[in-house]
């Protein structure tokens, strides 16, 4: 076996052009499989992350937030949005039958922050009541968010301990949160006292958040429904009980994303299958042509005492090595395109996108390279069989 392997390796090294072409064909196959799989996995992880981050069954937002279509975009694309309702909505929510937990959040779109040239979404939470963002923050910050402390999403390039200015207020970054693959990664989180200070500062800058009643404001209430209660019924009760606000089931938001994801997954899977079939057919033809061209070489080897079995094994080893080489090259090329430009891909897809962890990615890369080797070997099976049947005398006499 080792003799066959070394002979196959020498054959590949001595014919670099032929080896490169065969490797290039399998590289396309590996590129499609690895690239496509990483994109689909990232989209699935993004959707799971979105579900985990939403955490609530129902979200109550001011009616205007629905018409602005800003609420869903805030989650998916990180666009800034600010809409307000009377803070008394929180109490009214807790009065509704079937509500287990209710946590308020207040949104504020910053002016262009001094660190960036775009607006940042600032989200005020009540750490005591919050059950959606707080567990996520707790993974990166062991203490509670203090006054004028902020936790930043992973896409805000500010280090812990750095001071960022929001409406001329100095806020200290105390934590950088884990990636979620959603629009929440571009936001800044603070407690309600900090949010009130920022709202006041915004008011002084001419950014009004006042509502008609002039009372305290919140932007959304996240609601957890008691176990066993019908979520739709609670949703209807909330819509009937609270004026100028709309209760939205988080499931409906996720379903829309899930549908888009299914569409993208189908397209990517279709492309993978198409590239696979094409690459396999081309490989079949390529091996058939190469074997025909090398008939004299193999005839000489037969005359020198190589068995049919050894020649077949040599062809299969050569093609598997070519496939492995191409697989590694394809995976490398896909990694070079996917990982540095993951943010660009996420922005283009406009869907939650969370790259798989290193272990999963390495496993996928190794699997793809191995698969390429197997596919290349399979493509050469017919050629290897034909080769084992040649009559060396006839081939050498005919000069073919």
């Amino acid at each position, binding site marked *: 076996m080792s003799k066959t392997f070394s002979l196959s390796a020498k054959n590949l090294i001595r014919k670099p052009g032929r080896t490169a072409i065969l490797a290039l064909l399998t590289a396309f196959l590996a590129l499609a499989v690895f690239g496509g799989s990483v994109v689909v996995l990232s989209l699935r992880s993004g959707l799971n992350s979105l579900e985990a981050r939403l955490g609530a069954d129902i979200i109550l937002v001011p009616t205007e937030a629905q018409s602005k279509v800003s609420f869903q975009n805030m989650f998916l694309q990180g666009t800034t949005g600010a809409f307000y309702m009377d803070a008394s909505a929180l109490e009214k929510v807790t009065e509704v039958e079937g509500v287990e937990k209710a946590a308020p959040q207040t949104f504020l779109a910053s002016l262009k922050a001094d660190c960036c*040239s*775009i607006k940042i979404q600032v989200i005020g939470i009540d750490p005591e009541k919050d059950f959606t963002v707080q567990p996520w923050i707790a993974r990166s910050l062991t203490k509670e968010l203090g006054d004028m402390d902020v936790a930043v999403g*992973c*896409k805000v*390039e500010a280090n812990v301990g750095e001071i960022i200015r929001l409406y001329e207020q100095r806020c200290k970054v105390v934590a950088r949160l884990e990636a979620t693959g959603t629009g929440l990664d571009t936001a800044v989180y603070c407690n309600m006292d900090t949010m009130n200070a920022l709202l006041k500062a915004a008011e002084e800058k001419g950014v009004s958040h006042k509502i008609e009643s002039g009372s305290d404001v919140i932007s959304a209430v996240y609601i957890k429904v008691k176990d066993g209660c019908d979520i739709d019924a609670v949703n209807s009760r909330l819509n009937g009980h609270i004026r100028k606000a709309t209760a939205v089931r988080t499931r409906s938001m996720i379903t829309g994303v899930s549908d888009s994801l299914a569409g993208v997954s189908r397209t990517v899977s279709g492309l993978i299958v198409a590239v696979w079939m094409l690459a396999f057919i081309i490989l079949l033809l390529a091996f058939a042509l190469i074997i025909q061209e090398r008939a004299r070489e193999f005839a000489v080897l037969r005359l020198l005492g190589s068995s049919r079995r050894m020649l077949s094994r040599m062809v299969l080893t050569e093609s598997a090595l070519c496939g492995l080489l191409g697989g590694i090259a394809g995976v490398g090329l896909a990694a070079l395109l996917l990982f540095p*430009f993951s943010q660009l891909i996420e922005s283009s897809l406009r869907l939650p996108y969370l790259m798989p962890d290193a272990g999963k990615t390495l496993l996928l890369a190794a699997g793809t390279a191995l698969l390429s080797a197997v596919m290349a070997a399979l493509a050469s099976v017919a050629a290897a069989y034909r080769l084992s049947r040649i009559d060396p005398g006839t081939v050498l006499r005919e000069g073919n």
Partner: protein
Amino acid sequence: MKKAMIPACVMLALSLVVIVGSQTFLSPCVHEDGSFGPCHWAGRALMGLGCANGVLALLVLIFRKARFGVYMSAMPVCLMGILTPGTLIDLCHMSTMRCRMVMQPAMIILFAATGIAALLGTLSSAKE
């Protein structure tokens, strides 16, 4: 001799992509109010480093006997090119902004590829 010139041609082509790209399709963020962020200056520096690499590649093609030294001198320029966006010169503080999303990864890849070409050129020149 001819083989040793191939890396110089690759370097020249990549440098042209850096020079043209840093001002067009790989340019830093464009601020609506016309102000310049730090990424603007990073883009300018990258264009300068691309020009330096381009000149070095031309020097290899013109003064072939000096190619070993010229190829070697291109490598620190490439290292500077890799470190400029984000490390030596700050970029905008949001990953979703163009300078971090497009310019930084593309420039790192381009300068890394130029560096590999320079390294291959150095090795092939050393052999001769």
